[in-house]
């Protein structure tokens, strides 16, 4: 079977000692930042992008991917132990997980989270391996019109699935798209919004922008509400699940994995949405639903499986179509571009070692994470005692060095500082920065495809409606938009996000 030879190729790449090492580093880092509140995978990956420049592409992407799904594991640890979710996707886990800890079943909760995540990660990896080649094959038939419509769908869906005001998210996307036009226009060679600054001829530096908007801005916000973190954790013992508990988690893990895998593929979806949805679904379906909120083990199993499945399946659109579905994927696209790889359906055929290596590394990464998270849990607990006032100067230092190191240019550091102000202003006005990053990354691709489509159709916008694929994508986008605007769904969104 073709898939076997592909997986073998992937294994031969992923199990190279260097890639195993970097995968391990990624998972370790991911768990660490997942545990630490105030530092998330987006900011960390943005900070580490400059370092990946010097690494071979497979190692770089394996490490970055490890950070992402590793953070899903780490976030649940603090959620369960001290009711402080380290990651947005672990918020739901804290509800029942912390209660379980208070009832003395912290070990069981942690074990459920880790094992559920491992199962979900394995399934998601298989899904990735199975779905990717046919998807890429379909996408190779995409013309510029189809690509344009797909990107529009992606942007609309990410708005729809984002929390907060729709109009504001749309404004952020458009703002990001415009920012993407800064630089030299590829078609005509004309400089746009460059103001004769030589560093801007290549456009705004993606890494500097993301570090400013996500990393530094986050620090600015955190400095407003500084709390002394009180860490009163009892020793965690007993990682084994009882037979009864084991039976109870089987269903939730399966359902969570399925739901998470589905939601992760959708643009704008991903780990957080998956975990919320899985919790809500499980609450409705479970025979033990009265216990939810008081320490039901299903309330840990479902969201934890879902968030891992969602995190990994969100790689599918990025790896096969080149379309990032969430900010982390946008950063991965950025990383690939830094390495000189153009993301898109040709990645699977041009760089098969990279593609399949990444897929296999996700599975080995999940294995490493289970080991990291269960036996080594004491280590993470101790890490929680690092005070934020020691952490954030280190982060700022690394951000500065990182921003400088991309082009050996101080201007990038200034740009990062500038964008931290922009990001801060936006957050004070309650605009979410994530859609901005998505728009920024997609901006030039969107424009290029629009241009080409218009060229082919000689200025006729009907081209987007004439192609069946493009038409259905646009209709789907409209449906998504309508669904979100409809009052009943918007009420459900409100509920989901206020919980």
């Amino acid at each position, binding site marked *: 079977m073709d898939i076997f030879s592909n997986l073998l190729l992937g294994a031969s790449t992923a199990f190279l000692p260097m890639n195993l090492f970097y995968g391990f580093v990624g998972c370790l880092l991911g768990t660490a930042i997942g545990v630490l509140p105030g530092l998330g995978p987006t900011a960390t990956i943005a900070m580490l992008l400059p370092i990946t420049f*010097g690494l071979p592409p497979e190692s770089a992407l394996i490490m970055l991917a490890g950070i992402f799904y590793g953070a899903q594991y780490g976030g649940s640890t603090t959620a369960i132990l001290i009711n402080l979710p380290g990651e947005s996707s672990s918020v739901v886990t804290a509800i029942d997980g912390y209660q379980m800890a208070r009832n003395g079943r912290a070990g069981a909760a942690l074990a459920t989270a880790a094992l559920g995540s491992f199962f979900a990660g394995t399934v998601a990896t298989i899904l990735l391996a199975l779905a990717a080649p046919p998807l890429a094959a379909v996408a190779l038939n995409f013309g510029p019109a189809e690509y344009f419509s797909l990107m529009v769908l992606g942007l609309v869906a990410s708005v729809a699935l984002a929390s907060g*005001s729709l*109009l*504001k998210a749309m*404004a952020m996307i*458009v*703002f990001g*798209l*415009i920012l993407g*036009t800064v630089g030299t*226009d590829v*078609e*005509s060679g*004309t400089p*746009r*919004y460059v103001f004769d600054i030589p560093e801007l001829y290549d456009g705004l530096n993606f890494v500097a922008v993301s570090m400013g908007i996500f990393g*530094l801005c986050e*620090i*600015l916000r955190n*400095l*407003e509400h*500084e709390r*002394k973190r009180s860490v009163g954790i009892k020793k965690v013992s007993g990682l084994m699940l009882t037979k009864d508990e084991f039976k109870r988690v089987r269903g939730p893990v399966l359902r969570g994995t399925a739901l998470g895998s589905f939601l992760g593929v959708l643009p704008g979806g991903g780990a957080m949405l998956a975990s919320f949805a899985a919790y809500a679904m499980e609450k409705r379906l479970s025979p033990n639903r009265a216990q939810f909120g008081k320490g039901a083990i299903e309330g840990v199993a479902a969201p934890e499986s879902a968030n891992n499945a969602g995190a990994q399946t969100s790689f599918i659109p990025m790896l096969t179509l080149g379309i990032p579905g969430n900010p982390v994927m946008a950063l991965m696209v950025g990383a690939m571009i830094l390495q000189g790889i153009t993301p898109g359906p040709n990645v699977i055929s041009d760089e098969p070692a990279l593609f399949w290596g990444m897929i296999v590394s996700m599975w080995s990464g999940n294995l490493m994470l289970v080991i990291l998270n269960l036996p080594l849990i004491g280590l993470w607990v101790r890490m929680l005692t690092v*005070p*934020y*006032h*020691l952490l*954030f*100067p*280190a982060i*700022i*230092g690394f951000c*500065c*060095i990182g*921003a*400088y*190191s991309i082009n*050996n240019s*101080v*201007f990038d*550091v*200034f740009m*990062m*500082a500038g964008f*931290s*102000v922009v990001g*801060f*202003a936006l957050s*004070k*006005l*309650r*605009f979410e920065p994530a859609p901005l990053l998505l728009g920024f990354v997609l901006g030039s691709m969107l*424009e290029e495809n*629009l*241009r080409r489509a*218009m*060229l082919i159709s*000689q*200025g006729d*916008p009907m081209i987007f409606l004439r192609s069946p694929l493009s038409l259905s994508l646009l209709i789907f986008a409209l449906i998504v938009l309508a669904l979100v605007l409809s009052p009943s769904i918007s009420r459900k969104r409100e509920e989901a996000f206020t919980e």
Partner: protein
Amino acid sequence: MLKIRNGRDFVGGLTMICVALLFIWFGRDLEVGNSFQMGPGYFPTMLSLVLIAIGVLIIVQSITVHAEEGEPEAWNWRGYFLVIVGPVFFGLALSGLGLAPTIFLLVVGVAAASKHANWRHSILLALFLSVCSVFLFTRLLSLPISAFGPWLPFFGDL
């Protein structure tokens, strides 16, 4: 008299409109072209117009829809100043002072942004980080920055 129900969103919408106008203004020399042959100015101008429309809608919404009760805003002006000026200082001082002193000063300066900081911790942290970053970035990753720069007469040749 129009009562603004959601002040923050009103300002937000206004900001978006201003941003869009800025882009249109600074892009006024770019050739727009037509939809067949899109010039460099087509996409940005079109997007700016869309942004203006969205901004107007946000303002309309701010007039009609009540703001939700939120937490009161906390402001940490000292924090903002230090964290924003920090990287600027870094950029200015790096080539002159070199990596180690710049990181040291950056960390000490920025750490003061926190309520919980104390001098001993900050200085120790700064020392630790400057040693680590020199080691990590110049030795291991071969970044072309010197550990100590030309402004420091004695160390400059290290």
